[in-house]
């Protein structure tokens, strides 16, 4: 989100620290960054390849690992579109209309971020578990939610719930309502306004929210761990599979599978940075368009 154009700070002699202060600050913060952030990331790949390519590859193509990858993809594929639609609906509701309790609603949308992942898993056990509210009814109809795939999907939806909405609400708030009002006055229908005016304006913010949502959906551990029951090859997602391998002291395999998730994290950061650059390029170009109008 940073512009990284700091020439104004470097140029002003009044807003500059003595050389030694600058170098001390740089050294300490870079050392902190390298030690606490970079080193753990590098160690994932180092541990993964410690026993060579062959072991690495075997750990990934093994049936249980593939089943875990498949389940993770399913959970993300279901939770992503649902939270995307919710994010669009919520941000439209909040930024295009004025109603009582709006700020409270925004706080409620953020709620899943404030709740511990373990608590997030527990609430679904309390609703759908054998002793939960709907437990007896579900049992009668032979529907399994907890310790089965639907529970994992629900927990994933919960922990990724706010991502798209919280990215879009400030963005659409800042853009205002003028363009949509103009479209409506000119006779566009609600959906036309949405697809032709709003959506193009928010596409980068939307993509931003979706990739963050995806990263969390595929990497969630605590919430999913509570509802999964850890049935190998059946209700294990990639992070849960990593845990099982690790607890079996099968470190090379655990890190090999973990390295897939680390790659996904790196990919997420790369796309995120790319979006930020595109956004900056577009805001820089915007004033020219403004003048042409």
């Amino acid at each position: 989100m940073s512009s990284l154009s700091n020439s104004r700070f470097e140029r002003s002699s009044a807003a500059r620290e003595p050389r030694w202060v600058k170098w001390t600050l740089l050294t300490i913060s870079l050392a902190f960054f390298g030690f606490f952030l970079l080193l753990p990331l590098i160690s994932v790949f180092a541990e993964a390849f410690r026993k060579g390519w062959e072991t690495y590859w075997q750990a990934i193509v093994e049936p249980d690992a593939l089943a875990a990858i498949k389940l993770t993809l399913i959970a993300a594929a279901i939770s992503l579109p649902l939270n995307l639609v919710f994010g669009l609906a919520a941000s439209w509701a909040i930024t295009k209309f004025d109603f009582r309790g709006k700020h409270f609603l925004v706080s409620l949308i953020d709620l899943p971020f404030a709740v511990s992942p373990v608590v997030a898993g527990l609430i679904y056990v309390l609703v759908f578990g054998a002793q939960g509210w709907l437990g007896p009814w579900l049992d009668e109809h032979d529907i399994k939610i907890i310790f089965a795939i639907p529970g994992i999907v629900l927990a994933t939806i919960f922990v990724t719930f706010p991502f798209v909405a919280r990215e879009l609400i400030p963005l659409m708030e800042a853009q205002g309502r003028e363009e949509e009002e103009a479209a409506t006055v000119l006779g566009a229908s609600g959906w036309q306004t949405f697809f032709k005016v709003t959506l193009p304006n928010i596409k980068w913010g939307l993509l931003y929210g979706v990739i963050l949502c995806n990263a969390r959906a595929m990497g969630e551990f605590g919430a999913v761990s509570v509802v999964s029951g850890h049935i190998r090859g059946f209700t294990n997602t990639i992070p849960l599979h990593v845990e099982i391998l690790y607890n079996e002291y099968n470190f090379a395999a655990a890190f090999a599978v973990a390295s897939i998730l680390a790659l996904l994290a790196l990919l997420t950061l790369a796309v995120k940075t790319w979006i930020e650059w595109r956004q900056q390029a577009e805001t820089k170009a915007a004033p020219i368009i403004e003048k042409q109008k």
Partner: protein
Amino acid sequence: MSAASRRIFPGFNLSVGYTLVYLSLIVLIPLAAIGFKAGTLGWETFWEVVTTPQVMASYRLTFGASLLAGAINAVFGLMLAWVLVRYNFFGKRFIDAMVDLPFALPTAVTGIALTALYSQNGWVGQYLEPLGIKVAFTRLGILVALVFIGLPFVVRTVQPILEDMEIELEEAAASLGANRWQTFRYVVMPILLPAVLTGFALAFARAVGEYGSVIFIAGNIPMVSEITPLLIITKLEQYDYAGATAIAAVMLVISLLMLLSINGLQAWTAKRTGRGR
């Protein structure tokens, strides 16, 4: 006012209705289950469950380590944000992008990576062990994990405020005879303080509920290195749903309080810096 603006755009009922229904089904009703289940315990049993010595020890550990990690992140996060905004150096764009790594890296991966690093024969652990410093499977390990996951919160709340800061303020202070430290202490810091506190509160809130990155490195010894979220899991595995729910209720109340104070802090930041939220 509300009636008029409602009429300009279509879709009020659809978007607000859908938002409320989805929010209730996924978040509110399931969360309410905690309240109901905890309510069936009765006040005395509830109190007994959430104040046993083992649970009390876990609160002290969880909140103590989270506070400490938040404080460490406040200091180093501020420093990192400062360096990223104010200085030019090689690899800056890379570092700026990588600051979000703890948001993107799954917690279980963080957990096993840190454990491998700090264990007896790990890259870092092998040098600390001879000095008598044990990190993996101790409370120190929990702190390391919480520092990792909390860092981006402080950097990302402070960074935009630093970027928008008017350089003229500092120039004015300098021309009035303030030295660089005085300018920082009396001009820059008061503007940054609400953002630093917000970042601290966000990091703290996240750390309190953190599970995945901690359990691998913690050692999980009852009364010593057992965090509160782990206690919930342990009780669930013993089919003690009531006990798990009681502790979860305590954590939920604390999360809600944190959410409220973070909202307050953000309002303060907006007021101090003149930025909209």
